[in-house]
């Protein structure tokens, strides 16, 4: 029976594709290994269900195909079987949801020692801001945006003066230290996405959103925008460079503060 065979082949093909495909997660570079683990668990459970259902169907199509003299059984209900299946399904679902929620509770709990920095999105580039010596990010508003102040920092807020501002250049982060990313957009919705970090979050105009992660290996990683933001969306790229502590400090020394950047204009 061709059709039953084709359904079975779909299952076999899908499984082979899964294991042989060269397209898979990028090598992880953050602490969110648990997310990958949850995906793997989900793959196993859903894969088993898919295989079982489709193979069962293919068997039925083969075994109960119309033949001369066949009559179908008459069986409106089977309460026991129906409840039994519902309960097994509920367990399967719980087996995916439980680890998922467990990891989510870590995701939403930012460690106290995490250092903050800010990502600013605008059509269509990424900028960054790090707290200065005082350790405070100054206030900001889209109202203050001007060619000299592209991030819209409040010029009258003293705690913003020493903030380090990075425009049109790579962001550097020290390896092994948890960071809390604050995200702000001055125009439309964007989304800060580094595939190797797994975590991502929207930049929602009018809000400051956040998430946290710990970079776990050094290297340069691409930042994409994963929130459709107009025709320049695919060009909204950037880089994060994860450094060891010494390199990071060296880089940090070379950066300019908000005060330095706006100083010539003030005089």
């Amino acid at each position, binding site marked *: 029976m061709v059709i039953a065979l084709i359904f079975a082949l*779909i299952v076999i093909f899908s499984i082979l594709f899964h294991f042989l495909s060269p397209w898979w997660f990028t090598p992880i570079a953050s602490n969110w290994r648990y997310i990958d683990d949850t995906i793997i668990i989900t793959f196993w459970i859903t894969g088993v269900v898919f295989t079982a259902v489709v193979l069962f169907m293919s068997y039925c*199509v083969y075994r109960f195909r119309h033949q001369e003299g066949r009559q179908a059984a008459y069986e*409106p*209900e089977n309460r026991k079987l129906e409840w039994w299946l519902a309960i097994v399904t509920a367990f399967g679902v719980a087996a995916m*949801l439980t680890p998922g929620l467990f990891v989510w509770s870590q995701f939403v709990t930012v460690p106290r020692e995490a250092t903050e920095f800010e990502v600013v999105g605008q059509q269509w580039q990424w900028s960054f801001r790090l707290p200065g010596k005082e350790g405070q990010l100054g206030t900001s508003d889209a109202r203050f945006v001007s060619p000299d102040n592209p991030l819209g920092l409040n010029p009258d807020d003293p705690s913003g003066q020493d903030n380090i501002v990075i425009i049109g250049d790579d962001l550097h982060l020290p390896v092994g230290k948890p960071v809390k990313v604050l995200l702000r957009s001055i125009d439309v919705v964007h989304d800060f996405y580094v595939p190797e970090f797994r975590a991502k979050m929207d930049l929602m105009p009018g809000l400051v959103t956040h998430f946290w992660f710990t970079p776990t290996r050094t290297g340069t990683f691409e930042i994409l925008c994963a929130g459709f933001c107009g025709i320049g969306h695919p060009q909204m790229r950037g880089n994060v460079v994860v450094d060891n502590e010494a390199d990071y400090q060296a880089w940090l020394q070379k950066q300019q503060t908000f005060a330095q950047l706006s100083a010539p204009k003030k005089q």
Partner: protein
Amino acid sequence: MTDVTVRADDAIPAAEVEDVELYHPKSWVTKYVYCQDAKVIAIQYSLTAMAIGLVALVLSWLMRLQLAFPGSFSFIAPTDYYQFITMHGMIMVIYLLTALFLGGFGNYLIPLMVGARDMVFPYVNMLSYWIYLLAVLVLVASFFAPGGPTGAGWTLYPPQAILSGTPGRDWGIILMLASLILFIIGFTMGGLNYVVTVLQARTRGMTLMRMPLTVWGIFTATVMALLAFPALFAACVMMLFDRLLGTSFFMPSVVELGSYLQYGGGSPILWQHLFWFFGHPEVYIVALPAFGIVSDLISTHARKNIFGYRMMVWAIVAIGALSFVVWAHHMYVSGMDPNFGFFFATTTLIIAVPTAIKVYNWVLTLWRGDIHLTVPMLFALGFIVTFVNGGLTGLFLGNVVVDVPLSATMFVVAHFHMVMGVAPLLVIFGGIYHWYPKITGRMLNDRLGKFHFWITFLGAYAIFFPMHYLGLLGVPRRYYELGEMAFIPPSAATLNIFITAAALTVGAAQLVFFFNLAWSLFRGKLAGSNPWHATTLEWQTPQTPPAHGNWGKELPIVYRWAYDYSVPGAAQDFVPQNQPAATGAAA
């Protein structure tokens, strides 16, 4: 046995509405154009939906060409590409699937299946179609407006949708919102009709628990749509105000390409809540009619009663209700309070249980059946495979933390195409092959039908199954071109070419289907009144195609549920719902 099946001593409940006097058309125009007959309205709805659906299909070819051969086509600039995506998505979801399932199948099947002469408000029903047509025309007009249609993505997220970095910001977005508003008005007129007809106009003996699952699916979907669309309606009006009158419902203080705008205080995330409060139920608005129809296709063509009818009904109702409390799973990374994630992930995964029950009951209906591999049955089987695949990947995206890396990647595109694009479309095709003989009196060509099935089913799987893996890799959606990305190997480009080849093949197969529809109208085999030996009322009409008023002098009386197939001891392997108990089964 159980109380869903017939017992000889069952009382036959009276109908709630007595037989009605219908408006009788006086001229060709009132018969075929300004027509109040639900069956004609159904055909008008279906043809319009298919015509605009064809536009969405052609747009998908253009998008796939661009993704496979980025930059090779001078007529696909980034602006065009985003307009194509937006129009493709919006047309497919709203103007094709919703209109075809509810306006098309709903209008044709509800009165016939519940044994009514027509919808209860035929005039409003007619208006519903004309307003829908107007909505489609306004949508089409946006293609010709200065600046073209909106390119904001089908989700139309503000602020982007009304700012100048997005194509169609001048006219396109206004026409889009206007068209949606019209659509909702038209739908509401039709929807109220479907609901009242099901509740009030069932014939004698047609209790709710004797209705075919097709009616249950369409009925529940309509109730949901009546509750969900108002959220979109309000959101569209608010966005129109933001765009035209300078209000700030969705607009915080923002900069537009360097200059500060006079907006402030609004919340773009509010749009997302309103949109998805509609948008998630919308998935089930197209899925539930498909669930219902496919149940009937499987039962009829496997010559076996649907397994676990009552569980199937409750599953439809439970899914319908639960789908109103899961909307924010589209917003896990939107920046809403992340603690909502716990709630929405839990509700979302709970829906998997009634959904899985439906799948089990479909395959258990096949078990010990007498499976006729007709074209409608092939589409039904193809639906199960596709739907199971797409439903299972929903468990990835619903499980909040797993969604974080996968959201906004090609994984999402693959998932929703499987589950709400291809799967419901397969049911639509199956339904058309199944009911075309009733509508026209002729069968669709079988060979063309089988060809159409295999290309569409296997082709769609080939398009969307591998696409999940691009998403796992991290390939983002809504990208005009990927450009250079270190993490994307060159093999991904090869895969994209393969996917495009499959998409074009599937597209071409649809032309075969349209040809079949036209050709069989004149040349198809004559069908007779009940070619599939089905039990439900629409196959028991005195004329085929059914005349205005459906039933001749007497309304049918219903004596049994819709699934008396292969009843032990019965003369034939089916007992129509309007056949009295004494001559039917001994059960």
